[in-house]
């Protein structure tokens, strides 16, 4: 049972039937899934949702599948953690962390988009799935393809973090390292998709894929007790997640599940690759692609983001802003979240943390504004390299009590 009406061009409004297409033939605008919200509203209520299993599929009527999902059945419903210690550190009253660093099965929010994209590929009868990835999407695509025995071809920039490459190859996927930036990889994937018709989750299946991110927004609202937060801070790479969080909140309002609260949606990118954030910060409406991204936040290093324009519109239209922290601020952010809340996030989470700090300091987020939600979308164990250099090494001692006692005058001073 599906509530999808079809695909429509975000620019010129041309309508297309359900198919693995992503670009308007007439004006080259991106295609967006449209739903019959009246029909959805007759079925989807808070109590119906509450009666369902704790996964992203509790919002199935708002996701673009015709049949029940065939991969990622347990994906979603990650913890929303009340973060009082971090709130005190940052100087705000009410702070929450939406923690997709523990997403099932591959520890990033990309599990959500891939669950939709591969389930949809199977509905379309596409036998081979593929993607262009900065790392996390590679992990998610490879894992979920493996779970149903599909062939996966994964294209990545050749210089990704070793943990992200290993956590792709292990699933038996074909991994291709491309000598170039992510944007080179993406351009190549557009050509391969055109030539061989494979299901590229973030190219020709992109309209379906992108809808999966809405579940992150629905969960925030449901976990806050069907309330929309005052602020959310979201990391941006292609700019899809932030746009879909905006769409999720407006759908919940339209369906009457939340009352219209004006959530300010803020975007975060690393200073070394901030093509979207800089549009907002500098007040430009044209996006200047970044030819050579330079940042430890490799998962966000997209120099020519597909959804830059709509991401900008989401921020400005909601009264939000953007921030682009430096690499040292990213590392500080990762450490601060770990030390205050016991949550270890990857560099992208460090970007969100660094941006949140700046937005509070600059007054874009007020201390008493109501719930602030930080979007933590990836796992720290995947991006250890930048931390290895800065974290203290273990104190090394012999196995005798006297050796240990020797520390009491030094690193462990004051503990006994």
């Amino acid at each position: 049972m599906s509530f999808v009406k079809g695909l429509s061009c975000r620019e010129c409004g041309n309508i297309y039937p359900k198919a693995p297409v992503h670009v308007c033939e007439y004006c080259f605008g991106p295609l967006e899934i449209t739903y019959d919200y009246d029909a959805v509203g007759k079925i989807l209520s808070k109590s119906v949702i509450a009666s369902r299993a704790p996964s992203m599929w509790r919002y199935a009527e708002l996701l673009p599948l015709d049949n029940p999902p065939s991969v990622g059945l347990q994906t979603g419903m990650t913890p929303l953690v009340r973060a009082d210690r971090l709130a005190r550190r940052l100087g705000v009253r009410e702070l929450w962390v939406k923690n997709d660093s523990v997403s099932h099965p591959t520890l990033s929010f990309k599990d959500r988009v891939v669950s939709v994209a591969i389930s949809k590929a199977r509905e379309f009868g596409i036998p081979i799935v593929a993607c262009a990835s900065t790392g996390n999407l590679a992990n998610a695509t490879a894992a979920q393809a493996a779970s149903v025995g599909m062939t996966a071809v994964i294209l990545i920039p050749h210089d990704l973090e070793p943990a992200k490459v290993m956590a792709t190859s292990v699933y038996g996927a074909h991994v291709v390292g491309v000598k170039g930036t992510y944007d080179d990889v993406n351009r190549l994937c557009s050509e391969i998709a055109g030539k061989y018709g494979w299901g590229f989750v973030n190219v020709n299946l992109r309209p379906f894929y992108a809808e999966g991110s809405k579940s992150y927004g629905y969960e925030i609202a449901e976990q806050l007790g069907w309330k929309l937060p005052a602020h959310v801070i979201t990391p941006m790479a292609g700019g899809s997640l932030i746009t879909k969080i905006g769409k999720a909140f407006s759908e919940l309002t339209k369906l009457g599940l939340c009352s219209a609260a004006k959530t300010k949606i803020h975007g975060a990118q690393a200073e070394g690759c901030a093509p979207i954030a800089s549009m907002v910060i500098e007040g430009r409406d044209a996006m200047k692609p970044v030819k050579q991204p330079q940042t430890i936040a490799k998962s966000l290093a997209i120099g020519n983001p597909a959804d830059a324009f709509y991401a900008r519109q989401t921020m400005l239209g909601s009264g939000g802003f953007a921030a682009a922290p430096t690499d040292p601020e990213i590392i500080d952010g990762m450490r601060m979240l770990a030390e205050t809340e016991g949550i270890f996030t990857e560099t992208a989470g460090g970007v969100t943390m660094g941006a949140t700090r700046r937005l509070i300091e600059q007054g874009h987020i007020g201390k008493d504004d109501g719930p602030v939600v930080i979007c933590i979308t990836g796992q720290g164990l995947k991006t250890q390299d930048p931390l290895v250099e800065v974290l203290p090494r273990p104190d090394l001692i012999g196995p005798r009590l006297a050796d240990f006692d020797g520390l009491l005058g030094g690193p462990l001073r004051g503990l006994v």
Partner: protein
Amino acid sequence: MATVRIPTPLRKLTNGKEEIVTAGATVGELIASLEAQFPGIKERICDDAGKVRRFVNIFANDEDIRFLQNLDTPVKDSDEISIVPAIAGGLF
């Protein structure tokens, strides 16, 4: 006469030609002269208000004209102008 590179999806309108050598002192004039030769091509590149569509990029010798003078960007004889749809962030 400058050279205009036509992307694959618009070649149906140019009888399959990848490059058109045509006259014009600005990018806007080049598009007007393309339209005179291949009616219907302009509306694919520009919106009703005459501005370049949001998901179409035009490069003058590899520089995005949005960061030059848009359609008023001057062109010289030896210049190469590329029309490139922005598709999922990729260019081709």
